[in-house]
């Protein structure tokens, strides 16, 4: 071998080592990562992106997008003084280190007056806050129609932070950082404003902070964008199990009917057969109760605290229909970052994603309303299909948060 031939051979070896070898199907042919998806499925997959989607300011919140408000909101989010007796901050239940969730089946409750020392638990699972800004309604029953109203609801709910407007104003005035930020935003010290105005403004600052919680891109997003580009090499980086799970999700499972769009939620409500009887008696009225509460609230977009003078943003609040089928309906949550927010469902009754997949596999059709939607049916999944569906759902976790397994 001449020196030139040897150099050529060495160069070829380096090039071959660096060249990304295409994945091979069982018969040795190059695998097409998009082959399992027909035109309809591809359109659905593409509709789940791109991520993140564009997001404008919230017309109903004059503090939306304001850097001072965002900084103040981040501070208030962790301020226990905003709750009665300083028991809870927002971050105590919506832990930033845990997907803005608490990792519990049911949220922690504060003691009610005259009740035992321990507060026990709330009736519902604590929802995570990533990507909340892309929802139309807030809370499992959708009792709030804006992020600021949802924040205010938690601050004042008797079994949650339970603060009164006067207590909130006092807490703002007593905390130097809060008072400074508040004065910068409103031009007045908290103590100089009516208590209700101060309370609403603090909720709007928290909402401005919550709007910044947009989850990072995921392995699914990389696959979706590869499909959009027709980039098969990039598509092959998405594990086969996740691809099979995605085919189930968008195909036979019909999950995309409700978990639609870039945030994997159509922003509405559905009855998926989770029991709504409460352990201590009574029922969780779900969306039915949410609409009732919304209509009774002075802090909805139909009220005077909506900063959108045109009221165009109040269309859903004013037009939402209350029907019997709303009993048992709960919010269709986003599926992004799901791995960090278990247990699952409004009552936290499903401990992990395998249990979620099994729930849809073995749906109790007797539990669903006879006059409700005719969408769900038991999927009768095999063990392998359940694993595939879970692999897909885990591919909606941020890149690096635990990549989907083969």
């Amino acid at each position, binding site marked *: 071998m001449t020196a030139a031939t040897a150099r050529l051979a060495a160069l070829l070896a380096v090039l071959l080592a660096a060249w990304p070898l295409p994945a091979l199907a069982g018969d040795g042919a190059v695998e097409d990562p998009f082959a399992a998806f027909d035109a309809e499925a591809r359109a659905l997959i593409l509709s789940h992106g791109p991520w993140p989607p564009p997001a404008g300011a919230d017309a109903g919140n004059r503090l939306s997008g304001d850097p001072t408000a965002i900084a103040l909101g981040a501070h208030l989010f962790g301020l226990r003084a905003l709750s009665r007796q300083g028991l809870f901050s927002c971050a105590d239940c919506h832990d930033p280190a845990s997907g803005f969730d608490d990792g519990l089946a049911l949220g922690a409750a504060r003691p009610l007056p005259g009740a035992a020392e321990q507060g026990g638990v709330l009736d519902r699972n604590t929802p995570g806050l990533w990507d909340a800004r892309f929802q139309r309604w807030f809370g499992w029953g959708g009792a709030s129609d804006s992020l600021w109203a949802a924040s205010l609801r938690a601050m004042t709910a008797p079994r949650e932070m339970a603060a009164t407007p006067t207590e909130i104003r006092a807490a703002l005035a007593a905390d130097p950082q809060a008072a400074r930020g508040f004065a910068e935003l409103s031009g007045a010290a908290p103590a100089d404003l009516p208590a209700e105005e101060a309370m609403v403004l603090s909720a709007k600052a928290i909402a401005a902070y919550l709007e910044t919680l947009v989850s990072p891109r995921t392995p699914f997003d990389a696959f979706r964008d590869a499909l959009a580009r027709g980039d098969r090499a990039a598509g092959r980086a998405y594990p086969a199990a996740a691809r099979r799970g995605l085919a189930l999700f968008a195909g036979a499972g019909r999950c*995309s009917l*409700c978990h639609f769009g870039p945030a994997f939620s*159509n922003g509405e409500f559905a009855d998926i057969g989770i029991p709504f009887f409460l352990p201590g008696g009574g029922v969780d009225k779900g969306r039915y109760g949410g609409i009732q509460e919304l209509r009774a609230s002075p802090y909805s977009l139909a009220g005077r605290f909506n900063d959108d003078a045109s009221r165009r943003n109040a269309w*859903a609040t*004013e*037009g939402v*229909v209350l029907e019997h*089928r709303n009993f048992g309906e709960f919010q269709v949550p986003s599926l992004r970052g799901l791995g960090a927010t278990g247990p699952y469902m409004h009552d936290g009754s499903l401990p992990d994603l395998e249990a979620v997949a099994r729930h849809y596999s073995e749906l109790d059709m007797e539990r669903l309303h006879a006059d409700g*939607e005719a969408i769900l049916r038991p999927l009768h999944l095999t063990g392998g299909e359940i694993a595939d569906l879970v692999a897909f759902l885990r591919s909606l976790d941020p890149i690096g948060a635990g990549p989907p397994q083969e």
Partner: protein
Amino acid sequence: MANGAALAGRVLAALAVLMPALPGAAADGCRFADGGAPAGRFSAGGQDYLYRFDPPRLAVARRFSVEVQACAPEPSALIGVDARMPAHRHGMNYRPRLEAVSATGWRAEGLMLHMPGAWRFLFRIDGPSGGTEAAIDRQLP
């Protein structure tokens, strides 16, 4: 001169053929007041109506409006616009607000189709012999 008349005749004939295909125009002259293109046409109670969406392209879980234009000068009134998914046995989660924008035109605000699939729009007309309904099917997206 004769050639000129023949040419003008051919141009007019061509225009007559083309007119219905132009945006906003219909063979019977029925059109929206602003000349904008309709999305379609329906008949109810023996009368014809044009409809269109605002924004024109429907999307899942996005608010939109429906505009309806009667073709008759003294039409029966549009009294309701709704949409349902017959296969899923549900309708919209919101009741649109309907208002007359002219003697022959209406606008329904606040519609939202919350799932992809086959939707059926229902236009209710208060006809001379009672209420009547026209259905238009639409696949989303």
